């Protein structure tokens, strides 16, 4: 919105000291101008159209676990560049840039927490780190999280936000789909619940592995969820995609997810489901 940018600029130049950068935001879905503080208070949901802004893994963890209960594990794991991969930039430089940008070492954070006083294992992906792509570190962290759940007999919740497997680690990345699946197979045999939460966007090998293997699968409203990305499909079929294609509502209608839940009610819903499945 041109008028808005102009207004913002004028305001900023006039009272820069009083107005921290990005005090106001525009809803990328409906265009509504939102007071940032209001947005944060409302779990980053636009109150006009219910669009769910993407939030960091840190915010998501806060949203789901009881205050102060999160104990992160394996945060120190970082990519070792097994293929010495280089395109226009070195992979190691890209990783360093992502670490600097997000303050985390790879695209998922895992740990223990309590949810309404019940102990759980939680993994939350972070799209801001390398597009939430899955390489050796993400695969290993999720696998270890599953083992912690099995050891302690805790339910597991994984929150996905990912563009798929990380090209820069080649086959190591692709095989993380099988690795996390084998871990989840052991969780399943142990009779422990795994709830998968899909957020915007979740595509590629991530969707085609652990994201779609939940005993219960919940999606945020309007999230893009699919195997192939919209651009690739469009290129393949040579026509535009129908409105709403590959969105949460489309997946619910076609029977691939259990429900769509608003972020403001997500913790309560997860808690209820787990209480039904666990003694």
């Amino acid at each position, binding site marked *: 919105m041109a008028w808005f940018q102009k207004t913002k600029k004028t305001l900023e130049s006039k009272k820069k000291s009083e107005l921290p950068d990005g005090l106001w935001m525009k809803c990328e879905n409906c265009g509504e101008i939102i007071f940032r503080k209001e947005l944060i208070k409302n779990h980053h949901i636009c109150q006009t159209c219910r669009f769910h802004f993407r939030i960091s893994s840190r915010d998501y963890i806060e949203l789901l676990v009881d205050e102060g209960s999160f104990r992160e594990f394996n945060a120190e794991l*970082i990519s070792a560049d097994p293929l010495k991969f280089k395109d226009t930039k070195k992979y190691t430089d890209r990783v360093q840039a992502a670490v600097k940008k997000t303050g985390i070492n790879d695209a998922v954070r895992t740990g223990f927490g309590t949810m309404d006083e019940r102990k759980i294992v939680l993994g939350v992906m972070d799209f801001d780190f390398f597009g939430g792509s899955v390489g050796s570190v993400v695969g290993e962290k999720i696998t270890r999280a599953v083992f912690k759940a099995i050891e302690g007999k805790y339910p597991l919740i994984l929150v996905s936000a990912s563009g798929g*497997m990380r090209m820069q*680690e*080649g*086959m190591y990345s692709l095989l993380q789909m099988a690795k996390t699946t084998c871990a989840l197979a052991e969780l399943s045999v142990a009779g422990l619940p795994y709830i998968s939460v899909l957020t915007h966007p979740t595509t590629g090998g991530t969707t085609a592995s652990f994201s779609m293997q939940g005993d219960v699968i919940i999606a945020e409203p309007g999230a893009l969820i699919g*195997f192939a990305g919209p651009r690739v499909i469009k290129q393949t079929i040579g026509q535009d995609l129908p409105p709403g294609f590959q969105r949460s509502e489309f997946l619910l209608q076609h029977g691939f997810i259990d429900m769509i839940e608003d972020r403001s009610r997500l913790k309560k819903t997860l808690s209820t489901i787990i209480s039904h499945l666990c003694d």
Partner: protein
Amino acid sequence: MPERIALEFERPIIDLEKKIAEMRALSGSSQIELDDEIFRLEKKANKLRKDVYSSLTRWQKTQLARHPDRPYTLDYVKRIFDQFVELHGDRAFADDPAIVTGLGKIDETSVIVIGHQKGRGTKDNLYRNFGMPNPEGYRKAKRIMALAEKFNRPIIAFIDTPGAYPGLGAEERGQAEAIATNLMVMAKLPVPYIAVVIGEGGSGGALAISVADRIYMLENSIYSVITPEGCASILYRDASHAPKAAEAMKITAKDLAGLKLIDGLIDEPLGGAHRDPDFVAGKIKEMLLSALDELKSVPVDELIAKRHQRYFDVGVWSEVKK
């Protein structure tokens, strides 16, 4: 001799071979003595073949893996298995010709066969969707995996796909779910599972039938997280940089054997499997028989635990100091 389809880098070889064949024909039908000349050219051709095919780049191997004359799953099936019976359909929506499944015997052992199937020629390729399965194909494979479990038969899978089909209907009918579910079924499957990559191992679409106890690759086959073209169009914003992407991703059988991500490499004749399908089928059969022999006596719990461990071991990382 049927006309050979030549890849750009093998053009000089194919031209020379053609010339030799012509001279042979001429020598047979006339009094002209050409033996010396033919002998000289044969020697030259041999040297050229060795020079070209022993130093192929990853992109050239990719082209060989996709060669239109390359033997496909059913070409090997008829050479390796006796009394093969193809089984069709996912019992829910359709039969997907991009995946074939069936029953067969390898020597005395009854097995279940699953494989991607490409087509030869335009019409056949359209029918097979260029070997790119829809969800129905993966669900057919899942049905056959259940059959293998019920009747306690090992599974042999042939991998040869550019990838799972990225279409409207495929997404609508749950391509991601179909693949994810197959991975889980294979992770729990109580029978030996052996996979052979015979051409293209295209990402999740290949993995969807290859979570296995043993994975072998033909010398000129590839297995990749994304096609070189797909990788190039993301990283270089231009698919024509595919050769660079193929180099960077290390996608050949030799690469993956070096990284210990596969169990073995199966030799092909110089120039590729299509030069002698019988020879390659024989090599595959040998490998399958020895793998079946190794796996048949492994108790089920151990089989599954070892399968899991093989994947748990995949990954390279380091740790930052706290």
